[in-house]
C-alpha cells in the first residue's frame, strides 16, 4: 500500500486509517458516530461548535474530532464520562442562546440541534436564557429567504457556504464575544444586500435560522377559492427529491405519486415544467445557432460564448458581479417563466378560462425562483406570470397536511396542453443537463442526425466535477448550416457560483475557448437546489442525479424537438423558434445591479 497508514486505538479497539484522516472519520470507519453541528461535508473544517469533542490519553484538553487528525499510538475515547459531560454542557450552552420555541418552528423535527438536545437529554434549561428582545425580529425583507437570529447557533455553516461554495459573501460574522453574530453587510436587510437568493445557506443551516419565505397558506387559499383556476407546474428536480420529505430514501423517483398527490391537494390542473424545459431548449438551441451565424457569416460583433439563463441565482450573480457581460447570457427566460407566460395566454385560451382567474403556482427545488417570479419584468402575459412559488420542502409539508398516505397512492399522469415532456426536459435538473439537452437538439438541427453518443447519453458532460468541458465536431451539416461545417463546438459546464466565477474570469481576460456554457448556481445543479430536502451532501446529490438520468432513459421521447405538445405549440401559437410571439413571451432582458 502506497498510502501511509496510522495505527490508533478508538474506544479500546485497534484501528488503522490512512494518514490525514480526522478522528471523526476514523470513528465513523469504526461504526462510531460522533455528534457534529458546525461540521458539514461540503464545507471546510471550522471546529467551532465543540460538540464533537473526544478524550485522548495524555492530552490536557478534549480536542474536536472534526479538526484533529488521527496520529500513531493515539488512544481515543469517544464516550467517556468526561466526554459525555462536556458534550452535554456544550449543547446546553447552545440551547441557552437559541430560541426554544420548537413547536412554532418550521424546521421542527428536521433540526440538528433539536435532535442532539433530545439525544443528550437536555431536558431542562440548566443555564439562563441569553436571548434579547431584538433577537426575535425576523428579517422577512427578501422574496426568497427569511433570517431569524433567535435561532442562530453561530456555527457559521451559512457563512462558509456563501464564501466557499458561492463566492457571494452575503453573510458574514460581525462583532466579538457576546455580541458576535452572523449577518449581512452593515446589518442591512436581506433584500438590500448582494444575495443571489440561491438558498444554499438554508440547505446547510442546522436549525431554523435560515429558511425559505413560505407561501403554503397563500397556495391553500387559492386552491380553496372556487373562482380561481389553479395550475401547478413541477420542476424536473422535484420528482427525484420529494420522496425524502415523505419517508423515502434519497434517489427514489416519485413522479407519478407526486402528480396524484397534487391532484388530491386540489389543483385544477397539474402540469410539467419539463414541457417548458423542452421549449427552452428549442429557443436556446436556435438562439445559439443564430448567434453563431451572425458572428461567422454576417461578421456582427456578437458575444460568444453564450451562457444559459435557467438558473435565477446565477442570473442575479452575474447582474451583480459582471454587469458588463450580461450580453453573453441567453435572452431565453427560465423554464418556470416561459411556462408562466404561456399559462396565462396559450393555456388559458385552450381551456377557455379568463387569465385573470388563473393562479399559476410552481413547485421548484429552488429559493431563487421565488425571487425570479417577483421580478418586475416577468409579466408579459399581461398579468404576473407566476403567482406563487413553493419549494420541494413546502410541497412535502402540504402533502403531509393533506393527510394522504403518499406511499400507497397510485401513479397518475400530467394533464394536457403543457404536461408532456421528454427525457431532455427531465435532465435539466442535474448539472450538465441543459447542455446535454441543447446538444441533442442543436446537433440534429444542424446535421439532421442524432448526436454521435451511445444511446443519446453525452457522458463527457455528466458528473459532478466543478467545471467540465466537451467538444462536438460538426461534419456533413445540412446546406443551410454550411457555415458550421468542420467546426468543433466547444462547450463547458459549471455548477456552484465559485466555479461560475472561474469561468467568468476566463471570459473577462478574453481567454474563453467555448461557444456555449451552462451555469447552475447550486452545487450539482437543481437537484442540490436551495429548496430541496435537508440534509444535502454529495452522496445524496449523486443519488438524485442517478434518478434523473434513469428517468430520462425510461422516457420514450428523449429529444426536446420531438415533444408533441411543443410541436403543437409552435404550430398553433408561437410560429417558429425566435419568432415574434416567442420574442414577446419567452425572452427577457437583464438588469445591471450594484456590486455592494
Amino acid at each position, binding site marked *: 500500500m502506497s498510502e501511509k497508514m496510522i495505527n490508533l486505538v478508538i474506544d479500546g479497539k485497534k484501528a488503522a486509517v490512512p494518514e490525514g484522516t480526522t478522528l471523526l472519520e476514523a470513528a465513523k470507519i469504526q461504526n462510531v458516530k460522533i455528534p457534529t453541528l458546525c461540521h458539514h461535508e461540503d464545507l471546510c473544517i471550522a471546529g467551532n461548535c465543540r460538540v464533537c469533542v473526544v478524550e485522548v490519553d495524555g492530552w490536557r484538553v478534549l480536542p*474536536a474530532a472534526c479538526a484533529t487528525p488521527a496520529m500513531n499510538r493515539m488512544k481515543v475515547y469517544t464516550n467517556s464520562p468526561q466526554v459525555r459531560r462536556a458534550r452535554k454542557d456544550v449543547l446546553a450552552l*447552545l440551547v441557552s442562546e437559541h430560541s426554544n420555541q420548537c413547536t412554532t418552528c418550521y424546521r421542527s423535527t428536521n433540526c440538528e440541534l433539536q435532535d442532539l438536545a433530545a439525544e443528550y437529554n437536555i431536558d431542562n434549561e440548566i443555564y439562563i436564557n*441569553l436571548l434579547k428582545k431584538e433577537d426575535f425580529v425576523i428579517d422577512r425583507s427578501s422574496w426568497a429567504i427569511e433570517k431569524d437570529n433567535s435561532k442562530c447557533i*453561530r456555527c457559521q455553516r451559512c457563512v462558509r457556504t456563501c464564501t466557499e461554495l458561492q463566492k457571494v459573501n452575503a453573510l458574514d460574522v460581525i462583532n466579538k464575544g*457576546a455580541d458576535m453574530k452572523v449577518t449581512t453587510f452593515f446589518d442591512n436587510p436581506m433584500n438590500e444586500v448582494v444575495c443571489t437568493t440561491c438558498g444554499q445557506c438554508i440547505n446547510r443551516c442546522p436549525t431554523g435560522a435560515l429558511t425559505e419565505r413560505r407561501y403554503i397558506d397563500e397556495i391553500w387559499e387559492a386552491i380553496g377559492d372556487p373562482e380561481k383556476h389553479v395550475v401547478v407546474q413541477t420542476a424536473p428536480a422535484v420528482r427525484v427529491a420529494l420522496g425524502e420529505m415523505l419517508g423515502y430514501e434519497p434517489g427514489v423517483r416519485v413522479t407519478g405519486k407526486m402528480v396524484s398527490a397534487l391532484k388530491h391537494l386540489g389543483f385544477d390542473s397539474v402540469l410539467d415544467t419539463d414541457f417548458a424545459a423542452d421549449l427552452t431548449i428549442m429557443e436556446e438551441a436556435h438562439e445559439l445557432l443564430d448567434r453563431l451565424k451572425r458572428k461567422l457569416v454576417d461578421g456582427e460583433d456578437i458575444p460568444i460564448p453564450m451562457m444559459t439563463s435557467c438558473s435565477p441565482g446565477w442570473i442575479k450573480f452575474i447582474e451583480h458581479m459582471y454587469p458588463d457581460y450580461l450580453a453573453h447570457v441567453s435572452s431565453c427566460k427560465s423554464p418556470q417563466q416561459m411556462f408562466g407566460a404561456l399559462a396565462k395566454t396559450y393555456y388559458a385560451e385552450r381551456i377557455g378560462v379568463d387569465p385573470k382567474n388563473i393562479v399559476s403556482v410552481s413547485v421548484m427545488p429552488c429559493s431563487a425562483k421565488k425571487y425570479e417570479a417577483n421580478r418586475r419584468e416577468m409579466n408579459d402575459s399581461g398579468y404576473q406570470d407566476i403567482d406563487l412559488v413553493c419549494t420541494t420542502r413546502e410541497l412535502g409539508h402540504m402533502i403531509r397536511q393533506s393527510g394522504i398516505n403518499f406511499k400507497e397512492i397510485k401513479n397518475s399522469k400530467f394533464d394536457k396542453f403543457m404536461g408532456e415532456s421528454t427525457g431532455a426536459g427531465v435532465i435539466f435538473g442535474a448539472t450538465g443537463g441543459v447542455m446535454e439537452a441543447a446538444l441533442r437538439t442543436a446537433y440534429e438541427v444542424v446535421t439532421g442526425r442524432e448526436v454521435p453518443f451511445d444511446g443519446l447519453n453525452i457522458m463527457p458532460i455528466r458528473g459532478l466535477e466543478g467545471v467540465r468541458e466537451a467538444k462536438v465536431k460538426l461534419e456533413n451539416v445540412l446546406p443551410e448550416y454550411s457555415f458550421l461545417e468542420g467546426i468543433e463546438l466547444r462547450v463547458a459546464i459549471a455548477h456552484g457560483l465559485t466555479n461560475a466565477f472561474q469561468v467568468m474570469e476566463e471570459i473577462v481576460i478574453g481567454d474563453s475557448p467555448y461557444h456555449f456554457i451552462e451555469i447552475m448556481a447550486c452545487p450539482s445543479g437543481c437537484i442540490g437546489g436551495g429548496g430541496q430536502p435537508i440534509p444535502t451532501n454529495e452522496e445524496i446529490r449523486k443519488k438524485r442525479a442517478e434518478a434523473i438520468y434513469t428517468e430520462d432513459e425510461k422516457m420514450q421521447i428523449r429529444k426536446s424537438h420531438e415533444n408533441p405538445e411543443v410541436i403543437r405549440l409552435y404550430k398553433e401559437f408561437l410560429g417558429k423558434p425566435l419568432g415574434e410571439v416567442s420574442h414577446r413571451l419567452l425572452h427577457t432582458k437583464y438588469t445591471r445591479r450594484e456590486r455592494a
Partner: protein
Amino acid sequence: MIFNSSRSMYNVLHNYLEFFEEESCGQCTPCRVGCQQLLKGIEAIKRGEQSHKYLNDLLRLAETMKLTAKCGLGQSVANSFSSIVENFREEMIY
C-alpha cells in the same frame, strides 16, 4: 495574584468575567456562551434569583470550558473563576 483583604472578591471576579466576555472572539461555543453564563450566573446568585447551588453548575461549566474551548483564552477562564468561587464562596452569595 494578591488582593488586599478589604477587596470584594465578588467584584474582582465580576471584573474578570466582564473582561473575558468582552475579549472572547465568539467563535467557539464554550467560550462565547460560557463567559456570558458565568457572568450572568454570579449576578443572578447575588440578586437571589438563582439558588447558591447554581454555583456548582457554574463550577462544572468552568471545568468544561477549560477542557473544550478552542484557544487559551476560553481554557483559562476557569483558573480565576474556580479559585475565587471555591475559596470565597460566601462572598459570591451574600
